[in-house]
């Protein structure tokens, strides 16, 4: 049955929504945080996996989005959703600016540049006590006035679903094809008529916007923003999630976020020793399964019902050879 995997996913989503009420507060929280990381992982995969821009300031944008929203809500007393929207716009603008500055950088140079930017953001937030409350943390207005976490679960679910839908539409469009062409060979992409600079800036802006969205949600869910949201540990965790899942596909990146977040909780008994475990897992993934551990499983999944996996998402809807006159 063609597209069976889509129906399976829809049914799984419906089951998750219907049964979420039965989860206890702890697992509800873990699920919400996993979805927060899911948005971050998918958007980082858009940048690093689809375009090949290995940015290390993605969680810094989550932090910027969160602080922007929290501060605007606090200062201007605007609705939380409006604050989150402003956070997204701020991250899009800053992300585009970073993309513009980094136009001629790639590989380790880009990684080091974005790492430096990330540290600048973290240190600025830490030291500007008067504005951000520094290390003490900035208390934020809640997204919902609710005694349970359930509304947050639904909100996180909706944000993740909409983010994946939008990013999915992007990667399946001609723009997605251009972004992958840039990843493969910028010079050849330019010779093929792709406006490389424009699309690199656009990719940075869009990915940063989604990071800002995740950060805004996190700020108004957790209730307090600290500089730690955008620190290097968080970025390393995001890289581990995305790479272990598979950074060249959005669903596998999200899957990686879910798996790592749940495992982190399940293995909590091991204390800090669970973290080196993920390091070892990352090393093994890079050595033996560069496309991620979940990619083969995902490919099997989409083959359900005999549907052939197209090598390119973008060409899926093209007329087949026989139908071409």
């Amino acid at each position, binding site marked *: 049955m063609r597209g069976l995997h889509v129906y399976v996913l829809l049914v799984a989503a419906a089951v998750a929504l219907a049964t979420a009420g039965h989860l206890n507060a702890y697992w509800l929280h873990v699920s919400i945080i996993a979805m927060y990381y899911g948005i971050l992982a998918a958007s980082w995969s858009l940048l690093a996996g689809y375009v090949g821009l290995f940015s290390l300031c993605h969680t810094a944008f989550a932090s910027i989005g969160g602080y922007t929203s929290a501060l605007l809500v606090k200062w201007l007393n605007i609705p939380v959703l409006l604050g989150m929207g402003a956070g997204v716009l701020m991250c899009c603008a800053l992300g585009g600016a970073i993309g513009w500055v980094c136009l001629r950088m790639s590989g380790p140079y880009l990684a080091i540049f974005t790492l430096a930017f990330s540290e600048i953001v973290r240190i600025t937030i830490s030291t500007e006590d008067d504005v951000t409350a520094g290390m003490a943390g900035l208390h934020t207005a809640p997204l919902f006035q609710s005694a349970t976490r359930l509304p947050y679960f639904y909100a996180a679910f909706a944000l993740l679903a909409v983010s994946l839908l939008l990013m999915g539409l992007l990667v399946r469009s001609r723009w997605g094809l251009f972004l992958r062409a840039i990843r493969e060979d910028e010079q050849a992409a*330019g010779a093929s008529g792709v406006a490389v600079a424009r699309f690199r800036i656009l990719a940075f802006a869009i990915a940063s916007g989604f990071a800002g969205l995740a950060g805004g949600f996190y700020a108004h869910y957790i209730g307090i923003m600290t500089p730690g949201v955008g620190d290097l540990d968080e970025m390393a965790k995001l890289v581990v999630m995305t790479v272990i899942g598979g950074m060249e596909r959005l669903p596998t990146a999200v899957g990686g976020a879910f798996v790592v977040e749940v495992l982190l909780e399940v293995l909590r008994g091991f204390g800090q020793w669970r973290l080196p475990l993920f390091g070892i897992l990352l090393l093994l993934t890079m050595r033996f399964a560069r496309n991620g551990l979940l990619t083969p499983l995902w490919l099997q999944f989409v083959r359900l019902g005999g549907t052939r996996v197209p090598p390119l998402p973008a060409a899926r809807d093209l007329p087949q050879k026989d139908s071409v006159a």
Partner: protein
Amino acid sequence: MSQSTELVRGVGLVKRFGGIVANDAVDLVVAEGDLVGLIGPNGSGKTTLINVLTGHLDPDGGEVRVRGRRVSGRPPHVYAGMGVARTFQLTQLFGRMTVLENMLVPGLTRPHSRWDEVARRARGYLDFLSLSDVEQLHARNLSGGQQKLLELGRCLMLEPAVLFLDEPFAGVHPRLRDELVARIRELHQGGRTFVVVDHDMESILRISRRLVVMARGRKIADGEPAAVRADQTVLAAYAGL
């Protein structure tokens, strides 16, 4: 050569890399319908000239005009949009994308292009280049000759006015080389304009209507192949011609 048929003009092009002058005040005009062979010893500045004429390098002096419009300093996609296509000395494909996707990318950069129309055109060119059977393979899995053909196909998807081919015959099996020569001839007869750089003199002489010779960064000859081959300056600079 009338102004109206002029496609690309390089005027006094200078390009330096540190102390090395790769192009030293080179003038080159490519007119509609040309099939120019660009030859010269290693290090004579042929590839640099192509890079400058297609926007991949900014000249340190002089200017590039496409259809009379000054474009030097603009990025390569602007040149591509104006109908200037190129291949690379070392084949540069989108390796982890399929053959069909490689063809779709340039096609879809054209204004008002539609997926189905571009796909139909891509499949037409793949058929023309005998690559139909491999359209779903990743480009990196093709043979060297097939990769050269695909790079040519990718250029054709731009519907270019002029194609600069940088060493299209290098490392290609003789059978595929013949196929490549045949396709270039066929396309030229269909009205395409070519500038072909290669060391394979036999293939160049088989297809060229005009030969341009470079040596030590300068253009030393430009004319009909027979006349150029008899030129003493060329013989001196380019042993073996």
